[in-house]
């Protein structure tokens, strides 16, 4: 299944893009996606704490993804 990954701050900086399209196995979870992204980044995201949002809602626990979902990897925020 195909999901869109939105990247910000350090994730965007180290991956070199603000958006990725990822192809995942059916039944994949947000934890699976995060691992895949971290592997893709090598060690560049080591020590970077990430929260996850699915379809613009924070998900405190790992959830199963569905075709077409938009997943954001959210480093510590810095508004204000």
């Amino acid at each position, binding site marked *: 299944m195909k999901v869109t990954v*939105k990247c*910000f*701050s*350090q994730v*965007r*900086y180290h991956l070199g893009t603000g958006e990725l399209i990822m192809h995942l196995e059916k039944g994949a979870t947000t934890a699976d996606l995060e691992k895949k992204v971290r592997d893709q980044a090598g060690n560049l995201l080591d020590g970077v*704490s990430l*929260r996850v*949002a699915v379809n*613009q*809602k*924070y998900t*405190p626990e790992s959830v199963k993804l569905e075709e077409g979902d938009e997943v*954001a990897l*959210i*480093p*510590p*925020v*810095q*508004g*204000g």
Partner: protein
Amino acid sequence: MDFGFGGENVIKIEIVSGKIEPFPSEDSHRNDGAELVFNGRVRSTENGETILGLFYEHYEGMAEDELHSLALETTERFPISDLCCRHRVGEIPVGETAMHVSIWSEHRAEGLDAMTWFISELKRRIPIWKWAVLPDGSRIPSECRHELPTEK
């Protein structure tokens, strides 16, 4: 994004890309003895290094929704009247305002408490990030860090 009027709390949340115009100080708040205004401005250094400014990026859609939810929660936690917030994104030169918040309340105590809480929670929850604009014009993610929210 406006929400509420006619005796209820008025909440205004705007994410803007240009210079912030402050919310007007209105005489219509006839029962409010306190008007709190906060302007968060860009400083000239970041981690001791000189910068030209900050570039703010945001998660469009979610940032507005989360800000609105936070503003609503603030009016539920504190007995204030209205809360208005404008947050700027894009490149902001040193000295300019990145965030403007106005709160009206009957007395100063609840207004001050609400302002402090709103800004603290904004810095924990709202998907907005800063990039330092270096003297050569390049940008790197800001080192500034805040705690993750403890509950959501």
